[in-house]
């Protein structure tokens, strides 16, 4: 029994191209999908106050025990622009983009990070 008794040449071409396409996409899909699709997650006192796409510029004001921390998302990067804390370490931490990172203001209990926490369970089920 050869393969030919199971499928025609056309079938084989189709099967091989599907497998090749799948292999190619295995390499390229992460690059296409993960560029610019990232979200920043902002936490105040361990509670998530919001998730924001990195590709749209905005300013988020987060209330903490000391006052308002201003988080700025601009040009694909997130940074803490101003903070009521005494040392301003968080402001000097700079910025990060889709590659990932974290900004923390300990006195004002604000955390800015890439929202990539793995979720438990299934997203959806097909039937």
């Amino acid at each position: 029994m050869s393969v030919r008794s199971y499928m025609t040449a056309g079938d084989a071409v189709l099967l091989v191209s599907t497998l090749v396409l799948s292999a190619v996409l295995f390499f390229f899909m992460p690059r296409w999908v993960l560029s610019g699709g990232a979200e920043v997650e902002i936490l105040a006192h361990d509670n998530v106050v919001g998730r924001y796409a990195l590709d749209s510029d905005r300013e988020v004001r987060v209330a903490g025990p000391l006052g308002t921390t201003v988080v700025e998302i601009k040009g694909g990067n997130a940074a803490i622009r101003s903070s009521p804390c005494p040392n301003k370490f968080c402001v000097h931490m700079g910025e990060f983009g889709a590659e990932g990172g974290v900004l923390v203001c300990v006195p004002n209990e604000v955390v800015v990070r890439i929202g990539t926490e793995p979720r438990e369970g299934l997203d959806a089920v097909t039937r």
Partner: protein
Amino acid sequence: MNDRVQKLSRLALLLALATAIHTAEALLPVTVVWFRFGFANIIGLATLYLFGFRAALFVTLGRVFLGGLASGLFGSPAFMLSLAGGLCAILAMGLAWRLFGQLLSEVGVSLVGAVAHNVAQLGVAYLILIKNPGIFLLLPLLLLTAAGTGVINGLAARFFIAQFRQVTAAA
């Protein structure tokens, strides 16, 4: 027997079979079998070869609606997914059969259907359910499973078609 009655009763049997397979497959535990085999598509494909495209469309739509009712998922996102998948699969298979019927056997046509089914489901899942482009990371994996299930279902359909012709010729 009247030819039209004969055809109607045979199509009804195919539809019943497709619905039973569709419903049984919906009951498989997702934690173990995370992808769908699409065995119900065997019947859709066989109907395409035995009775033509319109009959196959009827059987496919019928089994999606009846299967939706049987599993209590009618109108749910899961139902929308199987509707989109089933519809795209049968359209793609009808087209492949019409255009490349000389080049492809049941296996090739089934492969086209399996790929169309998975791509359509992923697209609809993105549009109505998940809305996160990260879902397309699954595409290569789904193409891989489509290659496997497409070939298996194509061979099964070839066997089914041969059996069906043999039995109905004797009747």
